Each structure stands twice: as C-alpha cells, then as structure tokens.
C-alpha cells in the first residue's frame, strides 16, 4: 500500500497537460480522481515516473446541454453526474449509473473520464455509454478526434486512446427512456453484471433498442442480438422480457472469478437485461403524454 516514488505536476489546461505528457515521454501518467490509478500504484502494479494532475482544469469539468446533446467533461466526478438536475431530467440513466459506483468517497473523487480510460471490465459507465451511443472526445498532439463508444472499448483495460492523448469529454444524445441495472459485487460494488438499455418507443412499438453490457466479458459490448430481436416488437413488459431472457446465451469467454462463475454470469446477463429493459419501458410510459 506504499507506492514507489513519482513526480507530481498539476496541469492548468488541456494543452498544458498534453505538453507535460509529451515532455515526460512514456513515463507520465494522467491523474484526475485517482480512484483507479492510485490503488494500482499502492500495490505497485503501476509505477509511473510522474503524475500529471488534470483534476482542476476548468474546461474538463461540467455537464452542458448543447445542440440537443449533452456533454460531460472528463474530469467531472461521479457524484456530480449522479446528482445533476439536467441529467436527471433529460437522461436519468447516466445519473443512475453514476449513483451505483462505489461509495460516497469514491463518487466524490472518481471521474467519468478516468473510469472510461481505465476500462475496468466491471466498471459501470461503459455499459451506459454504449447504450447511449455516446462519443468519446479525445485531444492529442495531432488535434482532437471523436470515437464512438462502440469502437472505443476494445479489450481488457484496452481502449482507443494513445499514451499521448487525453479524454476531454463524453457526448451523447439524451434519452429519458433508458435505465441501468446491475448485480453488485459485494466487496468492491463493481458490477458482476451490468446492463444499460435504451429504447426508442413509438406508438406502442419498439423502433430501436440499444443495450450495453459490462462485467460479463473482457470489455463492455453491445448486445446486438437482443437489440435486433426487440426492434419492431410491441413495447410491453412481457415482450421485452421474452426478447432478453436468453441475452447471455450467445456470449463466449464469459468472466469467472471467486465472486461469480461463467454460467451464473451468463444467466445474470439475461436477468439484468430484462430488468434494465423493463425499467426503460416504464420510463417510456411515464414520459408518454
């Protein structure tokens, strides 16, 4: 629980952070809330030569509605997401997701960008960002770029982000008709399985469904088979339940650890897909005039 020696710098802007990162070569590591990185450093599983603190860069924090979309700065802490009036009104699923992360201490320090960049296979945000078709905004030495969440999460702790880049924000089109449901791991409160579901419902019919899954595989994925099965179906609880019941059946290489075996996790994908879908459906019914 004692990290090896490191230098510490605080960046004042995104450009400053990128310059400091470049100056450190491969030895620099960005830190915001530190709730993924610092535990690894304490266990000496990660020993960066220098930490470049981006937590207090003003442009990286905040939740903004823009052009019909919503953008959340990468250094925004989970607590701010969980309690945002804007998000609760227009996109409750992401506030709900943030509220399930860790405990109050974690939620007051940990950040959206940090969680997404770290890409723990059991972290909560990726499922929801996938279901929202979110975009990850990235800035690097070559300028800015945008990656779809679907393309961003690639493998275990592996994302489409180079060592000299940083995430500036996450952007998505808000929807009220989405929900997140998770099976808690009782020690860490990470997701043994977490499913986010977003529904486009029109006239009692599901036009489109998007489901993001975390916890079950090496990285978060979309449950496309369930999405396809739901499209065009009646928007009823029985209908979504039937379509999602076997959501886990086609999954390969399902995680297994001391908390949950692969068979159980696979079954829980179906259970929590159903729960997320039913909750999303309930929201679609309350938002209907």
């Amino acid at each position, binding site marked *: 629980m*004692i990290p090896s020696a490191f230098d510490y710098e605080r960046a004042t802007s995104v450009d400053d952070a990128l310059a400091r990162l470049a100056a450190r070569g491969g030895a620099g590591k960005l830190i915001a809330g530190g709730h993924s990185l610092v535990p690894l450093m304490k*266990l000496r599983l990660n020993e960066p030569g220098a930490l470049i603190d981006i937590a207090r860069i003003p442009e990286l924090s905040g939740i903004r509605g823009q052009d019909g979309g919503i953008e959340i700065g990468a250094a925004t802490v989970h607590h701010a997401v969980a309690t945002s009036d804007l998000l609760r009104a227009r996109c409750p699923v992401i506030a709900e997701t943030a509220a399930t992360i860790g405990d109050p201490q974690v939620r007051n320090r940990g950040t959206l960008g940090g969680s997404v960049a770290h890409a723990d296979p059991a972290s909560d945000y990726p499922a929801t960002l996938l279901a929202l078709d979110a975009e990850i905004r990235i800035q690097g030495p070559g300028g800015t770029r945008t990656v779809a969440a679907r393309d961003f999460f690639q493998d275990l702790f592996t994302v489409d982000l180079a060592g000299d880049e940083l995430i500036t924000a996450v952007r998505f089109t808000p929807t009220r008709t989405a929900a997140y449901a998770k099976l808690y791991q*009782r020690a*860490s409160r990470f997701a043994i399985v977490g499913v986010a579901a977003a529904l486009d419902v029109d006239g009692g019919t599901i036009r489109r469904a998007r489901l993001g899954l975390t916890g079950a595989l090496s990285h978060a994925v979309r449950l496309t088979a369930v999405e396809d099965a739901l499209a065009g179906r009646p928007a009823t609880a029985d209908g979504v339940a039937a379509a999602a019941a076997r959501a886990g059946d086609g999954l390969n290489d399902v995680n297994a650890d*001391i908390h949950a075996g692969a068979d159980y996790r696979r079954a829980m994908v179906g*259970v929590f897909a159903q729960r997320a879908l039913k909750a999303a459906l309930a929201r679609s019914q309350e938002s209907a005039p």
Partner: protein
Amino acid sequence: MAAPVLPKLVGQRVKRREDPRLIQGLGTYVDDVKIVGLRHAAFKRSDVAHGRIRSIDTAAAEAMDGVEAVFTGAQIAEFLDPMPIGTPFPSPEHRAVATDVVRYVGEPVAVVVAAGRYAARDAADAIVVDYDTRPAVVDPEVAMTGHPTVIHADFDNNLAVPLVPSGTGVSPDGKTVDDTAVDRAFADADVVVSQRMVNQRLAPTAMEPRGVVAHYERGKDTMTIWSSTQNPHILRTFIALLNGMGEDQVRAIAPEVGGGFGAKINIYGEEYVVASLSRRLGLPLKWTEDRSEAFLATIHGRDIIGYIDVAATRDGKVLGLKLRLIADVGAYNMLLTAAIPTLTMLMANATYDIPAIRTTLTEVFTNKTPTDAYRGAGRPEATYFVERGMDMLARRLGMDPAELRRRNFIPADRFPYATQMGAVYDSGDYAKALDRALANAGWRELQRQRDAARAEGRLVGLGLAMYVEVCGLGPSASLPTGGWEHAQVTIERDGRISATTGASPHGQGNETTFAQMLADQFGVPLEHVRILHGDTGVVKQGIGTFGSRSQAVGGTALHLAGTKVREKMAKFAAALLEAHEEDLVFEDGRISVQGAPDAGKTFAEVAAYAYVPVPLPAGLDPGLSEEAFFEPANNTYPFGCHISMVEVDRDTGELALLRLVAVDDAGNLINPLIVEGQIHGGLAQGIGQAMIEEVRYGADGQPLTGSFMDYAIPRAADLPRFELDATVTPTPVNPLGAKGVGEAGTLGSTPCIVSAAVDALSGFGVTHIDMMLRPEKLWRIIHGGQA
C-alpha cells in the same frame, strides 16, 4: 431527605466520552507516535505459499539511499529466539522471520531498517529471494493424510493436534474414552440428523491495522514499546522475555487502538523484531502494517469443519450429540491458536440439557495465515454447528424450531449447571430470552407473513438461534497469563478521581462505563472521574481485554478498589465531621451525615484533608489511593436468542436480510447504549460471516481475497435496523452481576441467518447451505443442482 441532584449513572445510556476526540481526529494512534531519530522498518514477505529459501540477495537493498540495515531471517535468529506459544499443545518452532522454509504467503523473510517508510519499502522490494517451491497444502482434510506434503517435519500428516476427545464418557485428562452412553443415545433415537458444515475462514480487518514503535534507550537500559494491542501487560511480559530484559525495564503502551476483534491479543513477530532491532541498533524504530499486509500477516479467524450428528426422539427430545471438529490452523501456532477450537468443544452443550455428547478435535497445519482468536473465538463455531443441527432436526421432525429448543433447554432452576463438556454455567433463563424474542419478533405473525409471501412465489424464510457463550475470562487456571484483573482508584488532592484499569480497551468504552461506576460510588459528577489505561508505566498490573472480560473482571476489580478507597475516605470524613463513618452519605459532591446534608464537607475538602492530615486520625495513613486484584471463581455465561427474516431473489440468488430481532442477556448492564453498540458491531460481523465474508485461497496457496476489493465486510447500508432487547439474569460470579457482551452479537446472528436462508429455499429440497451465502450458490439451488 431531598432527592440527590446527581443522577445515579449506572444503568443509564451515557454517551461515550471517548467519541468526541476519536471522531474529530484528535486521538493518538501508534502511527501518530513520532520520536526524534525515528527509523522505519519494512518486511520482505514470502510470495510463495510453501518453499525452501535457496538464497536471499540483499545487496541492492543495502545500497539504496536511506537504508541503514537489512537483516535476513537467519541473521535475526542469531539474536532473537523463536516466538513463545501460550498453549500447552506441542508446537513447531516459529521464527518471527523465516530462516529456511516459508509456509504461507506473507511470512516475513527479511527486514529493512531505513530513514523513511518509503525508503524501507523500496528496499524491501529490491531484496531478491530465490525459492525452491514445494507443493502447497491447502485443504485440511487432504492435509490430514499427509498430502500433498508435510509442512512441519515433526508433525506427521500435518496434525497440529491429532485427536482430542471430550464429553460424556471421556476422562478429564482425555486418556480414557467410554462410548457406552453416546452409543446408547444414538441406538435409542427415533431420528438422527447428520451434516458436514464449514465455518469458513475470516479476516478480522480492524479499522486500524497493527503497528509498533520501539524505543530502546541505551543510557537507561529501558525499552518503551507502543503497539496497537489489546493487552499491553502481556506484550510487556513477552517483549522483556525475548529481549533478556526485566519487566521493570520495559514499558508497553497501547494508545488509541482502532479495533482488535481478538486479532490484537497476539504478540506478533513484527513486534519482537522491531523491539529487538531497536535495542540492537540503539534507535527508535517504527513499523506500520498496511492493509495488504493485514490480510496476509494478521491472524485469521474461524476455519473449522464440523461433522455433527444429533440423535433425538420423535417428539423432539435430544438424546445425544456428536461433533467431530477439524480445524485448519494455518501454518503455525500463534499465542492461542491451538486453544481456540477447544472452546468450540467446551460450548458443545449450547443451551441444552443433552444426556450424551461426544466431541473430538483435530487441528491441521496448512500453508495459510495462522488462525487465532477472532470475535467470539470458538463459541460462534459451537453455536453455529449446534444451532444448525437443531434447525435440521426441527425440519426433519416437522416441529417449530422454537418449540424444539424449548423442549431441550437446561431449565432455569438447574443453575449453576455442570455441562457434559466440563463447563459450569453460572446462571441462565433460556426460555425467558426465547419467549421475549418470539414476542418481539411476532413469531406467529412472521410465520404467517412468510407463508403469504411464499404463496405469491417469493422465497422468504425465518431463522431462529439460541446461544450461550463463555465470557469474563477467566480463572487463572484457564489462562497462562493469569485470569485476574487489576485496578487502582486514586482520589486526587483536589477531589478529582483517577483510576487505572488493566482491561485495556480498544473500543469497549471503559472510559465511560468505569467512570459511571465510580461517579455513583463516590457521588461525584462523571466529569470528575478519569479512567487511565493502556500504559504499563501508569497501570501497575493488568491482563488485557479479550473474552468479553473487561466489565465482568476489570469492572469488578475497579469496584473493589473503589470500595477500599471509599472506606478510607469515610474514615477521614468521619474524623472531620466528628461522625461515625457508617452514618456518612457520599452524594452530590459532598460527604455528609445522613439526615444532615448541610453539616457535611465537600468531596474536595475531605480529599485535601487526607493529603494534609492535620491532625492525622489514629490508625490512618495519609492519602487516598487503593488497588485491587479480582480473580473470578468462574467464567460467566451470557446467552440470548436471535431471530431473522430473509428473502432470496429468485432470479439472482441475492439474499436480503429483512429483520433481525435479538434478545441478549448479559446480566446487569452498566450502560445499555454501549451494550447496544457492542451488539450492533457483533451482529454486523456475524451477519458478515453468514452473507458476505470469506477468506479464499487458490489451490497453489495464493490468497484470493487480499484487499477490500475482494473481501467484503458489512457496511451500514447492508444492514437492517436491528431490533434489540435484553433480559437480565445477573451472574453470581462477581458482585456487579455483569456477564460481558463484547462478542455476543457474533454468536446467534450467523446460524439464524443461515437457517432462514435454508427455510426460504426449503421448497427446493435443501437442508443445509454452507457459508458464505454467495448469490451464485443460492441461485444454483433454485435453478437446479446443488451449491
């Protein structure tokens, strides 16, 4: 006569006086101790479960900045003897730092002394150890056959304790065993239930990890050692012993101690090493355990398998009980390791009048962290096995579990009651506690609610457990350290009261409860009483706090010392007031003659006179300071009844605890608020064991639960609102009538939750589920196949 202004405090819900400083960060813990010239120690620990050390290369570590010395186990062994054991069982040699073979992940192999904590840790990482690894011995029932290998050369088949019998037909020395009565009980039985049960391994996880600072002062040839310990006097004894010093030369200090749960009874290798290195180097030296180390290097608790057989008539009278115990004690015997499972044997009678009982105990070495006392220490294990057995019997007979208990209770008129296991239960009224719990829970209504929920397809279950535990440890015959406690009460010259206690607290609230007692005894405000503890330089003698003994034994010593001072003070007051001492009243900060309160003196005036006694009354020495030792004639046996209601989520197997109703009888209570706090904590840990806590090891002996990311402990939000109540059956063992309550919560809660879960899932044909009640396990029962 007017009613006293000061309320009598004993029995009142006085808030803990300790808490304002603790919750404001104003406490001083071991890691807060700073001394000029302080150096820091770090331990290099084995990362293999079992292996011979081929070589240790310390050159790189020694060359690092700030590093002053590096010692391997072999070098330490040149000046530090093996660790003492506090039990009579044969034990393998246990070095504080391994010399040739490592036997669990986390065992120290070298120690670094450096200028700073970080430098010490960096250097420990730079030590290179080459191991010739051996097969890891992980499963105790395989280990008993000598497979895959033997851990200690002199212990065939890894048997730390080969087989100890106890109970009906067994002679007190265990040498002769007559099976007649037990065999007859089973032959006569209409029904026998049998089950193998695992009481899993737990990590104590005190909020404050261990820590030690040792300061040897060459000029005075004295050692001061600060340690996060439950028993500084025992620490002093052993530190003196292993350093070849006198107890007069060693001062042991337990400052604020952030929880112990039994794990801080032990004197650990790190304490011996830090003390001996401080002396050898002539430097103050500190080591603070980090959380990763705590999971590996602080003792674990429980980890015992019980094979239980209960024989009964068809109308529910238990005729006989057999309990075969196999304890996985880990790699070594620590101070009390070998003795803890014997307490499970001792309490096998539970609350029942059982004609024939046979227990046997086998203890087995494995390549795991050693086990030792953890809150309850042997009694929760006994309670769990017997209460689960009773629950299975009730289910088999189709009998209400409360009714089955009632038919087998030791009747209230049979106390003191000598059990088949050799205990003498001091006092008890088990039916009263059961009745109160049933009434408080609304047992019939709960059964109706359960049945209604089941009719809706919900998986709701009820569980009930009785417990009796052995507390107030204990007569000196039962403890190698002595089983007494000591106190000294001093009336200071200004009339304030200072009292010392050897019952060194680590969360028990003695500064409050003991002050309540003295405030009442002397008729002074609570604020005028200070309780001093945790420093052998201040507290002359003591044993420490464990086995729920601080109130029953330490509190009684305090009461006796207070009584002596009061008697002497009355003599001084009588001289001042020209009255008879038996006519004096201590009330509202005054000592006065009964019936004439205005004619009295203030408490401070009498105190001042005692220290400047002009004239000195005949037959009196100056001063007001008296001490007392108290040796109890017996243990105390608190008891109670816990009831729970649970619901299992059919889809996920998640277990929700809906209700927990507890009735605990700890005899007379000094402070019900503190008692309830103790019960809350114990319940949380008992619930944790049932539902979410388990230390796991891989087949290679690697720990799989090395952090709070994988080892769950209950949080407030995980727990229901506890519904507590108390019956009061005083003990005759001490004049306070107090039995002790620190561990009680861990006893009843665990089996009652498991029984409730079994009840909830009884429709699936299940009769027992081993802890912890992991959702996947319950889901498998619901969805086909056993856990």
